[in-house]
Every structure is written in structure tokens, then in C-alpha cells.
């Protein structure tokens, strides 16, 4: 159940896209379909990409010659400045007593297990390749099959163990950092990846340490960029506007 836990309760108020474009039609559609999490694309298209001129419809309030900032073009019944309603943070509906975020601990076992299984799969493929390569000049008979099979199982186990222990180290570092810092963000990812690389290559002296740390930092920053691509995109759009 934990896998779909966040998805189920993740009801975004689609005001983020709207706040970028600053258009009132987008805000209206965001208001109307507040709790519907499927209208994201609609909002993006109609809301922030083509903002209509905001002085299109001058409501009855404008006849009073009172300049009201941010309202009065929308509806006479709306007495709130919509800018106060726009919130840039994601909002979640959570069951009582639940954490705001799924921490790293809840994801750790899944991470470790998936990297273990991935390693087993890739290792088996690699073992098949190596076995076929090594026994190329043997005739197709039982000894060759046995040798290939041995290669497959050995390589699969080795890769699964390596990737699994890497993921275990990363998870332990991540959970520890989250616990120590009391916060969960990209810094944990980067620091966890770097520490993992350093620990994994710690037998190779200082040079190995630096190389492993660099590799871990690169991989984890790639992952962080991939993971936070939505936020980066929003940030870039905001910079442009």
C-alpha cells in the first residue's frame, strides 16, 4: 500500500502553473477544478501559455472608479485579491498523524530490492555474453551449456550483490542524513551519493576515494536533476517571465 500512498493523497491545487502566467482564465479553471489532479495539461495549455489581456472584461466595480488591485476584473462577487490565494507550494491531503513526506526509510527497502533485481538481470545478461564469448570454439554440447550456465549465475549473483550493497550504503547514508538534518531535499541525495562512492572506493587510497566520491556525486546529481525536473522547469519559466 505504501507505494501508492503518496499518489492517492496527492491532490495538487493547480495554482502553480497559473501563478506563472498570471492570467485570470487560468486561475478560474484552477479554481473550478481545484481537486482534480488530471487537468494539469489543460491548465498548462490554456492558463500559462497564452495569457489573455487582463483588461478584457472590466466588471461593474470599475464603474465606481475605484482602483482595486488584482480584482474587479473578474467578478463583482469576488472580494478577495486572488494573489493571496496563489500558493507556490504543493499541497497534500494527508491522513491524521502522517508525515508530510514519505521519508527515505519508507523507500529504502524498495530501492535496495529494485537495484538488487536490476543487478541480477544485467549480471545474467553479461554472464550470458561472457559465457558465449569464452566458449566460442567449443562444440554445442553439455559442457558448454554448463559453463555458460555457471557464468550466468555467477555474474548475476555478483552484480546483484554489488548493486544491492551500493543501494544499501546509499540508503543508510540517506536515512542517516535525513535523520540528522531533520530535512529531506536534494542535498541528502547528493551527500548520500558522494559518501556512498567514497565508502565503496575507500580501499583504493586517497585517489580512489576522490574518484569514487566524484562518481557518486555525478550520478546522484544526475538523479536529482531527473527527479526534480518539474521544479526546475517551473523555476526556469519563472525566470523567463
Amino acid at each position, binding site marked *: 500500500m505504501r*507505494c501508492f500512498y503518496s499518489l492517492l493523497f496527492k491532490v495538487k491545487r493547480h495554482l502553480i502553473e497559473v501563478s506563472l502566467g498570471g492570467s485570470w482564465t487560468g486561475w478560474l479553471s484552477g479554481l473550478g477544478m481545484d481537486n482534480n489532479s488530471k487537468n494539469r495539461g489543460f491548465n498548462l495549455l490554456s492558463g500559462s501559455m497564452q495569457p489573455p489581456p487582463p483588461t478584457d472584461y472590466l466588471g461593474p466595480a470599475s464603474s465606481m472608479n475605484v482602483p482595486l488591485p488584482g480584482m474587479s476584473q473578474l467578478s463583482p462577487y469576488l472580494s478577495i485579491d486572488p494573489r493571496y490565494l496563489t500558493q507556490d507550494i504543493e499541497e497534500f491531503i494527508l491522513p491524521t498523524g502522517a508525515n508530510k513526506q514519505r521519508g527515505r526509510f519508507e523507500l529504502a527497502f524498495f530501492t*535496495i*530490492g529494485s537495484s*538488487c*533485481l536490476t543487478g541480477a538481470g544485467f549480471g545474467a545478461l553479461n554472464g550470458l555474453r561472457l559465457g558465449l564469448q569464452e566458449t566460442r570454439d567449443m562444440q554445442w554440447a553439455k559442457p558448454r551449456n554448463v559453463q555458460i550456465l555457471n557464468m550466468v549465475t555467477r555474474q548475476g549473483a555478483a552484480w546483484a*550483490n554489488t548493486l544491492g550493497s551500493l543501494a544499501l550504503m546509499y540508503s543508510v547514508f540517506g536515512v542517516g542524513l535525513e535523520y540528522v538534518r531533520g530535512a529531506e531535499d536534494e542535498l541528502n541525495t547528493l551527500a548520500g551519493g558522494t559518501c556512498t562512492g567514497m565508502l565503496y572506493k575507500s580501499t583504493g587510497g586517497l585517489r580512489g576515494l576522490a574518484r569514487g566520491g566524484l562518481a557518486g556525486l555525478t550520478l546522484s546529481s544526475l538523479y536529482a536533476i531527473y527527479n526534480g525536473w518539474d521544479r526546475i522547469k517551473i523555476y526556469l519559466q519563472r525566470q523567463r517571465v
Partner: protein
Amino acid sequence: MEEYTREPCPWRIVDDCGGAFTMGAIGGGIFQAIKGFRNAPMGARYRFRGSLNAIRTRAPQVGGSFAVWGGLFSTIDCGLANVRGKEDPWNSISSGALTGALLAARSGPVAMVGSAVMGGVLLALIEGVGIMLTRFTATQFQNGPHQFLDEPSQLPVKDVSTGGFGVYGQGQYQ
């Protein structure tokens, strides 16, 4: 952590695999650290180095074999749940036995039976402890009629209608 529920079925395999790997790697790491420390030559430096080497080489292997156990167990568990259409302790027990049998398949039928019995008994113990714990915690929250009986104002009521009230309260929380 505070509300640990298990994943839905296909993902449970991955989750159990990871949990078993973690358990095996950490437990095996501790075990191998002690073993490497004891087996190394004299001198603190050698001992710690031997300990570290043992952890580095053996802990992932122990974790890997645990992960195989966990993944296979969970796969069979999910398959049984899918075939039988229900999830109960018998699923876990029989999948534990089947996992033990499958993993000992290369050692011959006698070893298969022995390890199947081992797996089944182990899982039965775990499930039994789980059921006992559930029963125990359920009785903690049982608020039957005894609350009312102790209260002085309720005492005459108890004398009048002992049968109906008591039976109702006992039957509700069993």
C-alpha cells in the same frame, strides 16, 4: 515507520527482496566482523583489517542469499494469493516451505524435504507470533461490560438485566 503496511502484491516482491538483503547484509556484516577479527593474526591493526576485509567480501554475499530467499518467498506468496484469491497465514507457511524446497533442489530430495519443513515451521512460528500479537493488542482495547459493572450507579442495572447485557458485550469483541 509508524504505520508499516505492506505493499500491494507485485511490488511486495521488490520490497521483500530489499528488506531481506538489508537484513542479511547488516547481520552478516556484524557476524563477519567478529569472525574476521578473531581469525586475523595478532595485533590490533591486522585484526581490524581482517575484520574489514571479511565484511567487504562476505556481507554482500550473505545479503544476496537472503535476498534470494526473500524474493522467492514473496513471489510464491503473491502467486498463491493470486491463485487462491485470499491472503491468510497458510499462504505464508506454504510459500516458506516451497521456497525452502526450491532452494535446496540441487541437494537432492531428502534435503529438499528437510529444508521445506524448516521453512514451513519458521514461517508458521512467525505467523503464529503475529497472530498472538494481534490477539493481545485486540484485548487491550476491549471495552466490554465490566466497565459498567464496576461503576456503582450501574450496579442495579446489572442485577436486573444480567443475561442480555453480558451476552451482548461478550459476543461483540470475540
